[in-house]
Structures are given as structure tokens and as C-alpha cells.
């Protein structure tokens, strides 16, 4: 389960960031922001990559002592970032993938909402709900 989930616009500004309330929110913002370095690098390298390396899921972006940061980029260059606690070793790659799929599906719904203006912060309740389901539940 994630400790922080973020959606980042094409132009790299945040559209949505949600983190567990128990920890320093700012720190997660920085973690997500710095992870964009790796995302950008991976996106820019796509031309050279083989077809199998061109999936939307970017995998583990970089590990820190405390967190694992995973990335995903849609074809519209919107980025999803999921931060997971390093101690959470039970989480498999497949589960991370399916979390991203869920996020992407929900994001697509947001994009198709006539009341949403692409590029604006996401305020959708439905999207919020999906994200809540993936976050570490405060115990």
C-alpha cells in the first residue's frame, strides 16, 4: 500500500498529491518532485528503447533508505508516482502495476469528465476514492 500517490501534469506541475497524514507532507512533495528527474530521463530515452521497454509503467524510479518510488507515464505525458514504504517488502511488482492501471483508468475518467479542464488540479471525488483505496490506512 502506498504512502503517497501523485499525478503530475505534462508540464511537470502537480495535478494531485495525496500522502499519508501521519508523516511530513512536504517531504513527500520533494520525493515526488525529485523523482521527476528519473522520469524525464526515462521518457527522453524512449526513442532508443526496444518495444518491450516502452511500456507505460516505468518501474522503480529510485530507492531511498525509507521509500521506494515507482513511476508510470501515460502517452499524454501525465505522470503517476507511487511512493511505498521501504519496509513494505511484501508488495510485488505486479501489485504496483495494477495500482497504476487503476489510477490510469480513473484518470481517464477524469479527463473525459466535461467539467474537468485538462491541466487543472484534479478534484474528482471518484478519483479520490480510488486513491484512498490504495493508500496505507491510518491504523
Amino acid at each position, binding site marked *: 500500500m502506498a504512502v503517497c500517490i501523485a499525478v503530475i501534469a505534462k508540464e511537470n*506541475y502537480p495535478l494531485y498529491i495525496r500522502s499519508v497524514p501521519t508523516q511530513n507532507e512536504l517531504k513527500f*512533495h520533494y520525493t515526488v518532485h525529485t523523482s521527476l*528527474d528519473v522520469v524525464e*530521463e526515462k521518457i527522453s530515452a524512449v526513442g532508443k528503447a526496444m518495444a518491450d521497454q516502452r511500456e507505460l509503467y516505468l518501474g522503480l524510479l*529510485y530507492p*531511498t*533508505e525509507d521509500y521506494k518510488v515507482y513511476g508510470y507515464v501515460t502517452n499524454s505525458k501525465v505522470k503517476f508516482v507511487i511512493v511505498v514504504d521501504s519496509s513494505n517488502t511484501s508488495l510485488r511488482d505486479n501489485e504496483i502495476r495494477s495500482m497504476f492501471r487503476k489510477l490510469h483508468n480513473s484518470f481517464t475518467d477524469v479527463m473525459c469528465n466535461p467539467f474537468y479542464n485538462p*491541466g487543472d488540479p484534479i478534484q474528482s471525488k471518484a478519483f479520490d476514492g480510488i486513491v484512498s483505496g490504495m493508500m496505507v490506512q491510518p491504523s
Partner: protein
Amino acid sequence: MAGSQWELPPELCCRPMAFVALTGLDVVYNAVHRAIWDAFCANRRADRVPISFKVLPGDHEYPKCRTKRTSYEWYIPKGILKTGWMNKHLNLVPALVVLFYELDWDDPQWKEKQSECATKVEIVRTSLQGRNTKVAVVLIQKKTPLPPGEDLVASERAAALCNACDLSGKSLFVLPHTDHLVGYIIRLENAFYEHAQTYYYTEIRRVKSHKEFLNKTTHQLLFVRHQFKIAFFSELKQDTQNALKYYRTAYSLVHELRAHETNMLEIKTMAGFINYKICRLCFQHNTPLDAIAQFRKHIDLCKKKIGSAELAFEHTAWMSKQFQSFGELFDEAIKLGLTAIQTQNPGFYYQQAACYSQDRKLQAQQLCQSGVSLPTPDPLETPTGGLDFYGQRPWRQGHQSIDPPDPEKEKAGILALQIKERDVPHSELIIALLSNAVAQFKKYKCPRMKSHLMVQMGEEYYHAKDYTKALKLLDYVMCDYRTERWWGLLTAILTTALRCAYLMANVKDYITYSMELLGRASTLREEQKSRIEKNLIKVLMNEVPDAEPECDPSSSTAAASLWNDRMALAGSNDFTIEVQDYVPFIQCKARFQSPSFHVDQPIQLQVFVRADCPHPVRFNKLAVSLSNQEYNQWCVVESSGQENMCLSPGATRCYNFSFVAKTEDVGKKIEMTGIEVMLGSETGRCVFLSWRGAGGDAASTHEALQAIRSLRHRGRGTEGRQELDWDSLTIQHSTMIISRVPKISVQLSHQPPALNNEMYCINFTVQSQEEAVARDVKLTAGLKPGQEANLSHTTYVTLNSSKVCDDSDPALLPDIPLGDLNPGEKMERCVYVKCVSTGQRVFLFHVAYTIDTTVEGQQINCKCHKDETVNIETVVPFEVSVKFVSTKFEPLDRVAVDIPFLLMTDLLSSSPWPILLATSSLQLVTMTSKTAQLHSQLEQVVLQTGECASECFCLQCPPVANSSNTVATGQYLISWRSPLVQTAVTLPHVILETVPLYIHAELPSFGRVRESLPVRYHIENRTALVQEVEMAVEPSDAFMFSGLKQVRLRILPGSEQQMLYNYYPLMAGYQTLPQLNISLPRCPTTNTHTLRRFLPQRIFVKVTHKHFEVCIYTLTSGSTVTWYRISDDFSTAVLTDLKLVRQHPPTLTSIHNVWHKKFFLSRMT
């Protein structure tokens, strides 16, 4: 010890090299010895064997060797590794001691010297009692040695010396100090290296041999120690593969030790050492992934081994050091050629090291209370000044059991450590690590990581109270977060920056940061914004702001006094803040109402201002600067005590300005160069918020873009409420001043297309609708500039209708003065244009005048102008085609000398209206006209579109002197239209030929049935020879004839013969004349065929003499059909046409002009 406690010992970090001691060298006073020593030391590159040399005196005391333990049964080790051990084997206990001794083989005092040498060897041996260190002797000799085996004395004495010194032959060397010193030295040191290898090999064997005596319960520490030692000796032996193997074993053994609070530090210290060695060797072996894996394992194993909670900072300090050392190892490997990647570079390790250092600082702050003094005696002092074993506590060295021996001492020790920790310059350490990390991330394309670390550095400087440096860093990265629109992060950085500015009492920065924290990009809560705004208002009133929360009270007090000092300081209270690149709390956008204004209209511009802060803001002045500063005075608004200069939160205010442009600015652009809003007052502090251009800030472009996209959704709603949508307000930062709209009408009338070369008339009418007199009206007329270049050479314009234009007339007539034009007055002019080439042309009619008018009560003198253009096509009026035919109307491809032929011209009108042809004439060059014609047949002919006018000329060409066989014909001149335009058509050249024999017939133009038809043939000899001619007339059905049927005759050069025949037609209509066969036996090139072309082939035979006949010929030329009715005797011909009917006196030639296509005959009654 405090700060450097965690530094790895240098003997651990260096690369171990075999230690060889050199004795018997006097490097100070003996030049030869000095040179030898230098040769050992100089140029120790990678190709030299890895040995560390040291010069020691001959009687040097080497460390004593402890007596060998015979049994480990009762031995309980006190620690893992002695602090002196590594150094001992690197620098104190040599693998080999070399004794240098000056002795030549033929030394006269050989005996004495031999025994002296033996004594010296003995001294060294005694000092090394119990060690396996080898001894070698090097004889320094003056003479070059003979090749081995030749010097019998030498080998004998060498054996004797070895014997005396108890040396093996392999340990005795000779060093002649001659030319090749370095070569000898290299050979020597290679030999030394072999000895050293053997030494370390035996050392390894020795340590290994201990193993069998050890047991697992009491000697666990020794297992680690021994493995470490074996590994270290392997390194000295340069056997890094095995060294790595033993270190790895040592590493797993160290973690097998039973860990408890008292030995935790020792275990971690040793684990750290061994880990360092392993990682270092892995990098050295170019297996960085192994190094990283080992390090991760190490961290995972040690992370939780915190040890005493009271000394938690020790653990974090140690962790920090682990990361830092690994980062350094990694970095060093990169310098040696390893490639790192974005996600795996030394930066991460430095960053993590910094992170642990930050934790350490926090823990230290929590655990180390101030005010407690160091207990006496200092429990950290040891009798030797250092520790016996790595990682032990000074107050209980060698203690290995679980519980501390003395709880009191333990407490005092911990307290002492805490007190020491207090003095550690944590921030300095953190900043150094962060700065290392920044350098790395910069290298590996991680700009955001770099910014993040710089923020941390800034914050650390803030904690270290170095606010200037803090602000410098924070200010530097702020814009990155602003441009990427990470408002949450920007707000956090601004908050820290504001604190720094407050604590330094830096007014300008304080205002700048406040301004942005109040702005729409700030994510602060309302109450915080409210607090900041109140403070800002205080600062504007030159009062001391409240302290920022989270500043410690002592700093706040200091800051308050600084602010008080600032307040007292008079002057320097004006601040201008460039807000364009921020997201300030007052937004400003300006626009000219229109992208252009006529000079007789007032220029209007609007400035929109809006505040995003929680409370209303007052401002005192709003001023717009324009590119022409003279207008600035009209674009200022200042408060004069009323309410109107106050901005309510969220509401947009609009200020309108208008001014009259200067007439000399017509055609120029007026730009807004800046907008200033003045906050505060002259009595307190003045802050000018200054926008470049027409406003907008770091965030407004994106907001405007989003607004455009979402306009569809909001659209209707806001329209109704007439409320301005701030985001969709667009900036119009410049406007053009354009000339006054002319109130005149210009009309052009003409009848296109224009004909090539004609004087084409364009009627120009100008009428004034002005209310005043239009003065100084000027017309510029002609070809519009900027068209194809050659058009200007083929176009002529004039006002003069009386003469045809020529090259002297321009393509554009500039500034024709037309005088003044009263209101309502009309003026006309005719402009004539002559176009020498065909095609499209654009003609310009530009009318300029000046007029006086008033704008907003101001009298101005305006220049107005109006342009009218017209596109005119020029076409050719007619096409002329020319052909040469024989007198029989057969097309000629060449013309015979002195024989008449016909030139026929067709003039086909392509003009859309009738063309009046004035006259036409031929200008011949070499040829002569056969007909004395002066009168053009085309005179006064009017041609309709598509009609054709033809002429025919009978010409003859005299012999030409020059050799070329072509001859120029001349020109056909046609004059048309009025005023007269003459068009000259150059006629084609003809090819000339000479004929040897010319024959032509003389016969009536027609015959009558059964009436005699006399035909006379003239045969001319045109050669210089007598020609024999054979002539024969072939019989014909249509004629009977009388005359010589067959004849042979001779014609003299240049003379002529005539043959007369009387033909008697038998049938009416066109009849083929009897064929004449002529041959010239002397001139075979000329045959009947070539001659026959000069003769008529047919003749028209009429039925009877008396009847009146009408024939109608159809003349077909091009597509036009003209009917000719011709009376039988050719005395008169009447030309009838639908359009024109006129008398046409026919001549023989003009009748021949008719092309007999078909005819019919009818009898009239």
C-alpha cells in the same frame, strides 16, 4: 576525537604495500647513497612493484615480537583488532631489511670489511628476533662488475661473505653506482618484492596455523581477528582476490558475534572497516555491483544495531560515515574510469549521509542537555591517550561481558560523550555532505534533486544562523520551483526565506517574500496570510513586524533590535521590487483598447489591478511608463485621500487612461514599458511594485492558457453578470498610431485591358468629404513600387495626352501638386500609361493632403492620405503573320534571285474593341518592290475582334554579293489608333537561291471555250554557258494547241528565247494546261520538275464571252470569313460584309490574294 571519531583510520583506507626497510644508507651526507635512495623513490608509477620503502638506521629497533603463545586454552581475547596492528605491519615491521654496504670485490681491506658487514647483519637480525623478516645485503661497488662467472675473485668472495653473514646467495646483491643506476635499482626492487611476497606468505601461514587451537565459545573474537589479518596480509602480498575472500569471511564472522550494548560499537566499527575493505576491493576489481550489494547488505545488517539509546547520535553518525565513505569510494572509482548512472551515483550516498547527519543533529539536540559540565576525571581520557582496540569505550577497555563493569563509570562516560557531541559542528558536516551530493546530482542530470538538496543546504545554513548564505541558496532555487509550478514547495521555501529576512531585518527581501506568500501561488492558510499581511503593513508603516513563528526566541529578540535600528535609519526607505518574475499578491495587467488608434482619436488604455491577500490593501499611486515618455504624464493616478485607491480581496479594479498622440508619432508604435504600483507612503516606507511591459507575472501565462481552454464551460455564465474573468483578460502591450482616416473619395475609371504600346487613359477623380479645406493635395500616380523589376522599365506614365510616351517618362509620377480642395469639391485628372510589355500591372494612386482638426479640444494638423490601386492587364492589340509565296501562291521555302515573289501579311486583331488602322508600309532592305505601290491597302480599315486584315506585296530580290544565302527582308510598319501608334514588325529573313534557267509564261488571265488562247513562254539562260534546251508539250484532253510539239534549242548566256503556243480550250472551268517537258542535257541538276514550278499549271476557262457572271469566293483566313463578289471582267469588285461595306478597287495582285477554296457559278438573268 569528537568530530573525527568516525573517520576511518588512514591505515585502513590506504592501499597496503609491502614494507621494505633500507639500512646502511646515509642519505643526508653521502651523495651516492642519496642518489640510490632517490632512484628508489622517484617515478613510482604503476609499472613499478608496490613496495613502500623506508630508510632506517642500521641499529634501528624494530617492534618487539611477543613470545609465541603455545596454548590458547586460557586465553580470553579483549577485543577484535588492536588499534596499532595495521600500522605495525604497514610501517613498522618490514617484510625485508636490506643492508647497504660499500664494498668492492677487490677491496684491499676485504677481510675487515667482510666481518664488519657480518656484524651489521647480526645487529639487524637481533633486533628482528622472532620475526620472519628476511635480511638482504646490497654491496655498493664503484667498479662495473664483469659478466657472471668471469670474475673468479668475486664469486669466491661472494660465497665467503654469504657464509660470514649467514645469508643465502639469493639475498646478496651488488649495486654498481655507474651509469645505469635506475636499471639496477629496478632489478633490485623486483628481487626485494619476491622476498617480501615470501615473507607475507609465511605470515599468512602462521596466522592460519592458529586456527586449530581456537574454540568457538571463547575465541569468537579471534576468528574475526585472524581472518582480518590473513586478508590484510594478502593485500600486502597484493593477492587481492584472496584478500577479498578473507574479508568476506571476516565480515560474516563479525556479524556472528553476540551483540549487546557493551560491544555494539566495537562490532559496528569492525563491520564498517571490513565492509570498507570489501567495497574498496570490489571497485578495484571493477565489480561495482558487488560493491553496492555488499554495502546494501552492510547497511541492512547494521541499520537496526543502534546500541545505547542515550547515544543514539553515535549510531546515526556512524551510519552517516558509512554512506559518506561509500560515496567517496564510488566517486574515486568513477575518477578511475567507472561509469555511473542517474539512479546509481555517489550523490545518493552523500545525500543519505547528510540525511543521517541531520538525524544525528536532531538526536544530539534532544539527548545532549546543555549546562552540564564534564565529569572529572574525564572518562574519555586513557592512560595511553588512545584505545587498545578499535571501537571500545575508553573507560572500560577490554571489557567483553554483557553488563558494564561499573554503572557509575558508564553513566559518566555516556555523559562525557554527550557533552562532546554538543560541540560537533553538525550543520557544517551536513552542508559539506549536501554540497558533495549537489555536485554529483548536477553531473548526473538530476536538476530537481539538486534543487532539493540546495534547499536543504539553505535550511541548514538557516539553522546555523548564516542567513545570508541561506537566502542566497534559497533565492537561487526558488525560481525553479516557481517555473515548475510546485506551489507547495515554493511556499515552504519562501517561509524559510521570510524567516531569514526577518532575522536579518532585511526590509526588501522581507517585503518580497511576504508579497509572494500572500499571493495566489502561496499555499499558506488564511490565518497565516492574514498574519503576514499585518506584518507587511507594519513594515510599510516603518514599524517593527512581529516575529516569525518557529524562530527561536533569542534570535527573535536580536532581530527585533535590528529592526529598531533600521527604523531609526532615515532615508533608504524607498524600495523598488521587480515583481514580474514572482507571483505577487497584487496582480496587474494592462491593455491598449485597440491594437491601433488613428491620430485623431484619443488613445485609450486600461490597467487592471487585483489583490489576492486576505485583507484590503491601500496603494497610493499607479503609473504606466510608455515607450514615448512624454505620454507618461497622462497615465498616472495618485490617491488624494479618497477611497478609490484601495483593493478589496479578490475584486478587480480597472483604471482607464486616455491621451492624444502627437502627430509626429504617426506610423510609430507606442509600447508600455512598465507599470508601477506604489504601496506605503512617503512618510513611512515606499514600495514600488514594478512590472515590466504591460504586467503579468510568473504564473499568469499558464493561467491565461487554462482560461482559454475552459472558456467554453464558463462562457455563458460570466457574460451575463458582466464580471471580468481575470484569467481571460489579455494583455495588449503596444498600439500603433496610424494616420487619420481620409475623408475623400478617389475614383478611377478606365476601360481595361490596355493594349500594348497604346496610350492608355485612366480617369482619376478625387472628391473631398472633409469639413475643412484639404490643403496641399498631392497625387502620386503610376506603377505601384515593389512589383517585378522589369515592369518599371516597360511602363511609362504621363499627364500629357498630346504625345506618345517614350523612355524619358517615369513609371511613377510622384507628388503631382493638385492645390487645395474645398469641402465637397471634385477634381479630375487623366493619367496616361504606356505599357511596352504585356501582363498584369498594379497602378497606385496615392492622394496626400494636410488638414486641421481637433481631438478632445486639441487642435492638430494631420496628414492624411488615401491609396487606391488598380490592376490593369495589358494585351497585344493584333498579331501579324507573314508568309512568302510564289506568284502562283505556292509557299516558298527559298526565293530565287531576280524572280518575283509575293509577301503576304495577315494582321489579326486580338483587341477586345475595333482597331482603326491608319496606314501600313514596308521598309525593305535589299529587295525591291515590283509594284509601284504607295498606297496602303489597310488605310482606314477598322478591325473588329478576331478580324484579319491582309496585304500582299510583290517583291523581287537582286543577286547578293556576299556569300551568305540568307537575306534580310526589312520591316512591316503599321500605324494605328490615335494618337498614332506605330508598330514595327520585323520580317523574316529569306533564303536565296540562283536558278540556271528561268522560264515563265505569258498568258491571259482566263480563256474561253473554243477561243484561241495564246501562251508565250520566255526561257532565260542565267548561266555563263550556252545552254541546250529540249522542250516538248504533252497532249491534253482539255486543249488543242498549235506550235512546236517538240523542239531543241540553244540559248546563249544571259539571253532569252521565246516560244509561242496557241492553246485552244475545249472545256470550261479550271483546266490543267498542257504539260511542258523541259530538260537541260548540259545541266543535269535542273530538271523539268524544278523548272515547272515557275509555270502556271491551270487556267480558268469561261463558257462564253457574252454572259454576265458572278463568282463568289470564299476567303478563309483564320476563322473569319469574308465574302467577295467579283464581276466577270474584274473591272470592279464589291466587298460585302456584315459590318463594313465599301468599295474596293481590285488589282491583279489583290485578287490573287484570294485563296480559292471553293466557288460556284450561277447564271443571272
